[in-house]
C-alpha cells in the first residue's frame, strides 16, 4: 500500500504522456467491448432462438420468394403443428437513414408462433382488426416517438410493391419477450402489402411450429423433399440455423471483428510498451538512485509494472464505461439486426481483464529493464 503513492506520483510525472497512454488503452478497450457486443448480440439472438420453430426459405437465397401454395405443403408435413409466414418489406420512413426492419406478416398466426411479441389484448385486437394496422417495438416507438393511433407512411423500398407510399396506423406497441425478437421492428398485415404487389402471392419465408424439437431435422428434410425438383425448391433450417445464416450474410463476423479487435489491442500494446520504455529510460538515474538506497530489483520491477498496470486499468475502466454508455440499441440504432445489443457484464469483465493484460505485457519489458539496471553504469551515464 505504501508504494501506491509512489506509483501515482510517477505516473503524474508526464501528465500528457500518461493521459495519452490511458486514452489509447481506453480506446482499444472501448473498441474491443463494442465489437464484442456486436458478436454477443448476434449470438444472443441465435441462442435465444426457439427449438420448436423451423424456417423455410427458397433454397437459392433469402432474397427469393415462394408461392403461398407452399403453405399447404408445409402444414401437411408430419410433425408440423402450425405455420405462419413473413416478407421483408424494406420501406423507407422519411429518410433512408431512418432504417428499421419492417415485416409483412400473417398477423394472427405470427403472433401465435411468436409469443415473444408481447402486446396488450386491446392492442392485439386492434392490430388484427385493422388491415392497414401495424405494431412497432417499444424501442422503435421511442426512437421515432410513435404512439398508438399515429399514422406512419413508408415509401416503397423494393420495387415489387409498386411506387405508391404505404400508410399504416399504429395499433400497438409491443415489448420484446426474448432475444429472438427485437424491439426495433415494425410488423403489419401481409395481405395489405400483397394486394399492392406486382407479384402477388409471394412469401419470403415460412415459419413452422413443430411438436418435437428432436425431430426438427427430419421434419425439415421432409418439407424440403416435398418441393424438391419444383421451380421453388426450399431449404428448411431450425430457427437457430436461420439466424446463423442471417448473420453469415454479413460475412465471417467472428473473424472480421475478432481481427479488428486483435489488431487494435496489439497496436495499443506496442504503443503503451514503447511509452513505458521511454518513461523508464528517462528515469534511469532515479531508478539507479532508488537501487542505491536499497530498493531491491523485485520492488523496482513491481513499481514499474504496477505503474503500467494502473494506467491500463484506468484506461480499461474508462473504455468499458464509455462502451456501456454508448453501445446501446437506442444510441447505436442496431436493434433491427441485433435484438440484444449492449456491453454485458461478461464482456465488461473480459475487457477489463484485457486492459490489465495490456498493462502487464506493456510493462513487462520496461520493468525488466529497470530491475536489471546496473547501478554504477546508470549513475555514470548522467554523472
Amino acid at each position, binding site marked *: 500500500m505504501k508504494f501506491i503513492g*509512489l506509483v501515482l506520483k510517477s505516473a503524474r*510525472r508526464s501528465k500528457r504522456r500518461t493521459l495519452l497512454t490511458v486514452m489509447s488503452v481506453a480506446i482499444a478497450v472501448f473498441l474491443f467491448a463494442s465489437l464484442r457486443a456486436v458478436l454477443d448480440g448476434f449470438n444472443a439472438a441465435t441462442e435465444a432462438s426457439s427449438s420448436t420453430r423451423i424456417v423455410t426459405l427458397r433454397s437459392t437465397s433469402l432474397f427469393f420468394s415462394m408461392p403461398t401454395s407452399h403453405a399447404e405443403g408445409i402444414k401437411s408435413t408430419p410433425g408440423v403443428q402450425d405455420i405462419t409466414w413473413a416478407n421483408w418489406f424494406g420501406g423507407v420512413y422519411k429518410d433512408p437513414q431512418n432504417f428499421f426492419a419492417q415485416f409483412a406478416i400473417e398477423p394472427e398466426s405470427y403472433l401465435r408462433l411468436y409469443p415473444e411479441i408481447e402486446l396488450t389484448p386491446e392492442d392485439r385486437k386492434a392490430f388484427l382488426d385493422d388491415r392497414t394496422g401495424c405494431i412497432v417495438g417499444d424501442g422503435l416507438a421511442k426512437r421515432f416517438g410513435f404512439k398508438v393511433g399515429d399514422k406512419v407512411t413508408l415509401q416503397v423500398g423494393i420495387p415489387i410493391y409498386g411506387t405508391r407510399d404505404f400508410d399504416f396506423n399504429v395499433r400497438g406497441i409491443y415489448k420484446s419477450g426474448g432475444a429472438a425478437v427485437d424491439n426495433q421492428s415494425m410488423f403489419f398485415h401481409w395481405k395489405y402489402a400483397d394486394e399492392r404487389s406486382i407479384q402477388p402471392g409471394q412469401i419470403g419465408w415460412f415459419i413452422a411450429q413443430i411438436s418435437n424439437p428432436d425431430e426438427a431435422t427430419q421434419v425439415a428434410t421432409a418439407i424440403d423433399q416435398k418441393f424438391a425438383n419444383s421451380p421453388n425448391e426450399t431449404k428448411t433450417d431450425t430457427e437457430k440455423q436461420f439466424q446463423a445464416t442471417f448473420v453469415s450474410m454479413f460475412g465471417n463476423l467472428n473473424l472480421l471483428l475478432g481481427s479488428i479487435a486483435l489488431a487494435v489491442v496489439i497496436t495499443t500494446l506496442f504503443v503503451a510498451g514503447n511509452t513505458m520504455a521511454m518513461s523508464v529510460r528517462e528515469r534511469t538515474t532515479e531508478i539507479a*538512485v532508488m537501487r542505491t*538506497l536499497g530498493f*531491491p530489483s523485485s520492488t523496482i520491477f513491481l513499481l514499474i509494472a504496477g505503474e503500467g498496470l494502473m494506467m491500463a486499468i484506468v484506461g480499461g475502466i474508462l473504455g468499458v464505461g464509455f462502451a456501456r454508455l454508448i453501445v446501446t440499441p437506442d444510441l447505436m440504432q442496431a436493434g433491427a439486426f441485433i435484438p440484444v445489443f449492449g456491453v454485458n457484464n461478461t464482456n465488461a469483465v473480459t475487457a477489463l481483464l484485457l486492459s490489465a493484460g495490456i498493462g502487464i505485457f506493456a510493462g513487462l519489458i520496461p520493468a525488466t529493464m529497470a530491475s536489471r539496471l546496473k547501478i554504477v553504469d546508470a549513475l555514470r551515464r548522467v554523472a
Partner: protein
Amino acid sequence: MSIDVPEGEYLGLMGPSGSGKSTLLNLLAGIDRPTRGSIRIGDTQTSSLSERALAGWRARNVGFIFQLYNLIPVLTAFENVELPLLLTNLSKKQRRDHVMTALGIVALTDREKHYPRQLSGGQEQRVAIARAIVTDPMLLLADEPTGDLDAKSASEVLTLLQRLNKEYKKTIIMVTHDPHAAERATRVLHLEKGTLVEQVDRGPERPALQV
C-alpha cells in the same frame, strides 16, 4: 589496496580523475562488485552477499550522498527523505517522525512540502543528506557532495557533514577534488591509478571499522 577505516572516522578520498576513488566508494556502498579481494564492513563481508541481501544491507547501513543530489523530482522534500523508510516496517506516523527528525538536523523542516525544483542547490543537497541519514545508517558515503555547489552552500554542507560525524558519530567517507572540503576530514587518502599514494592523518585514534 588494503585500508581500515575506524568507526566514527571522517575519511576523505582524493585523487585525479581515473584514480579509482569513486570506484572505491561504489565498492564500499555495495553498488559495484570487486573482481578480486574482499570488503568487510562492520561484521558483514559485503563482497560475498547476494544482490538482494546487499540491497537490504545497503538500506540498513549505508547513506549515500551524490554530487548532483539525485532527488526524485516528482516527490516533495518530505517524500524524498521518506523514500528509504518505505523499505522498513515502520508505521506512517513513525516514518513521519523519522523524516521530520532528519529534516530538522539539516534545518529544512519548513521545506518539507517543497519539490526539488523549488529548492536551491544547497537545500537540495541538504535534503539529500537528510535522505541519507533518515534510516540512521552507520556509514555515510559522499561522492563529491560539494562539487555542484557555490562556496557558501558548499561550506554549509561540509559543516553539516562534520556535525554528523562529531555529534552523531557517523562514519563518513567522502570523495572530493576540493582541498578545502578535504580539510574537514580527519584523514585523507590520496589515490592514483588505483593505488594509495599518500595518507594525511588529522584526527585522533578511533576503534577500527574494518573496510
